[in-house]
């Protein structure tokens, strides 16, 4: 059985430092929710407050509608998977998994059977009698998951548990975690600074910055419709043009930037004269065959190539900016014609107005 988790105007202060600032959020039962943000944004503090290792200075944390105030970590229906996993090295794998049951006074034979079932679930049969230090990184990961599942929590809390693994294994474990979450139907709350992890696994993502929730939404919404310049910059890459709005019409805005005059979407209805950023994803920047702006293609630039990074599935073409600013990045997918991409040529590139997002500068 899984429970919903609610944060009700939660604030956490350490002396004068505000780690979490007035965060309210409802996480649904059975949801895979990720907190995404750079280190120091307060996401770990939130996790530790939900698990009961810290108490918020203000606000309430509710699990299944019940105020958790005064309940320690051992009295909450949550199980936390630590960043370093924190397996007990002096115990066998089975004893690790059965530890929570042992603390609940469960009979030895029952504990053993349950440990073996859980090892089956995390695809590690035969590991029961191994020592923890005999396991590989991925296997330890699975044991940690099994140990947390053993106490039948209603909410699983995961503190960047994949960060110690190498890339291939990490990608594999993402799928595995997601599968385990689906199979068990538990509420998963996942902490990460890795946008790839957050986007691939989650039902919803909450992006955090400096103790505040910047945006909450499904991964596609976070990526396609970032609410603030911070979210746009933190999740995925962006080409950024800074400038001032000169014209607003029909949900679009004309922005006078250092690189030229461009048209983009203006979903927040920002007014003329405001200092803004215009954000264009590298994969939305496309080579064009036209010479100059037309009514269908209002955003056109001609730039020489700075350098090209061949990434396999696509090439990342870096285009020089006239004022010495950070080069533009353009992803060209590898359709077989990439071999004749060489440096030292002028690209004419453009982007559609609906692919350019206008947001207030500096997250204001």
């Amino acid at each position, binding site marked *: 059985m899984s429970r919903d988790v609610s944060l009700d105007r939660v604030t956490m202060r350490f002396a004068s430092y505000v780690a979490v600032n007035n965060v309210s959020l409802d996480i649904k039962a059975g949801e895979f929710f990720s907190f995404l943000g750079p280190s120091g944004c307060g996401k770990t503090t939130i996790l530790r407050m939900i*698990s*009961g*290792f810290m108490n918020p200075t203000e606000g309430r944390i509710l699990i299944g509608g019940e105020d958790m105030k005064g309940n*320690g*970590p*051992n009295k909450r229906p*949550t*199980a*936390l998977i*630590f*960043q*370093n996993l*924190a*397996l*007990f090295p*002096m*115990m066998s794998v089975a004893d690790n998994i059965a*530890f*929570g049951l*042992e*603390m*609940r006074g469960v009979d030895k034979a029952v504990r053993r059977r349950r440990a073996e079932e859980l090892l089956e679930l995390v695809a590690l049969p035969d590991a029961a009698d191994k020592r923890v230090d005999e396991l590989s990184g991925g296997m330890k990961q699975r044991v940690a998951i099994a*140990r*947390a599942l053993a*106490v039948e929590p209603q909410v699983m809390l995961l503190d960047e548990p994949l960060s110690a693994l190498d890339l291939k294994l990490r990608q594999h474990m993402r799928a595995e975690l997601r599968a385990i979450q689906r199979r068990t139907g538990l509420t998963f709350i996942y902490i990460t600074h890795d946008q790839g992890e957050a986007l691939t696994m989650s039902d919803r993502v909450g992006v955090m910055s400096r103790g505040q929730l910047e945006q909450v939404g499904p991964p596609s919404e976070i990526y396609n419709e970032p609410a603030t310049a911070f979210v746009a910059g933190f999740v995925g890459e962006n080409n950024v043009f800074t400038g001032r709005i000169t014209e607003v019409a029909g949900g679009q805005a004309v922005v006078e930037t250092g690189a030229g005059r461009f048209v983009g979407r203006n979903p927040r209805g920002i007014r003329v004269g405001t200092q803004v950023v215009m954000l264009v994803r590298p994969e939305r920047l496309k080579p064009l065959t036209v010479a100059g702006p037309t009514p269908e293609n209002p955003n056109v630039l001609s730039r020489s190539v700075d350098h090209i990074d061949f990434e396999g599935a696509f090439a990342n073409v870096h285009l020089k900016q006239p004022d010495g600013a950070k080069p533009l990045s353009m992803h060209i997918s590898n359709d077989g014609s990439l071999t004749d991409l060489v440096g030292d040529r002028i690209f004419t590139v453009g982007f559609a107005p609906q692919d350019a997002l206008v947001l207030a500068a500096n997250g204001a």
Partner: protein
Amino acid sequence: MVQLYHRYGALLATLLIAATAIWVLMMVVLPYLVMAEYSFHPNLPMMQQGGPDDVYTLSNYASLFSGIDLLNGELPDDFRVFLRTIWGSTLVTFISLVVCYPVAWHLAKAAKPEQVGLLILLLIIPFWINEILRTFAWYIILAYNGPLNSALLGMGLLDKPYRWLSGSGGVLIGMTYAFILFMMFPLINAIETLDISQVEAARDLGAPEWQIHRRIVIPHAKPGIAVGSIMVFVLAASSYIVPAVLGSPGTRWFTETIYIWFFEGQDWPRGSAYAFILLGLCVVFILSVMRIFRVGLTDIAK
């Protein structure tokens, strides 16, 4: 050795090694050899030494155990003292462990870093004073009309003064005090290396505080407990000053027995044999602790 030659050249390296070897030989090995030799000879007047009666014998070792009559519960005095020393040292070791564990846990994990330095300093300062003086201080504290009895009487915890120094109480208290740091620091070091997230994980999985210590902290601290126990036991068993000052005739320690055979009984062979028996006791204790705690020499060296 090769590195030494490499670094200092042949002459200097040879000198250094020779000096070390002579030191070890003269100061450590030789006295032991002389004592070992003594312990296997009968105690003869000077004139008969080297004579026909001067043969190798185990009688000095056997004399500790001769006269044990288990059927009638009769134990010879020296053997009684030997048993008391084993029991007393074990008790001192155990009391030290019980006293040190909470303090070591607090210093290693619970206290704020800025407090730890001060607390450790407070632990060490008394040990800047000579051991004899500290022991005499306890003599004063534990005296019949001393401050401890006055305090306990004043608080109403005692009806009449307690004779701390006539039983083994004074010796046990004094020894625990004298050797407690040898338990404290190995424990602190061992507990300090415990990853705090293991404690948190156990708590998160529902473990109450005592189970966290029983299942996580103590197993992790085992090498420290082993080292501390070995140190305290060996120091207690071979302690002379504390039982001499705080003990009474009824609480003689084995070291005192050895002293008596050497200097009052004028029986050096037997004194030597007893000294080796004490050494043997300590070795047996060390090996058993290593066995019980399943720690190796390398764990202890840490």
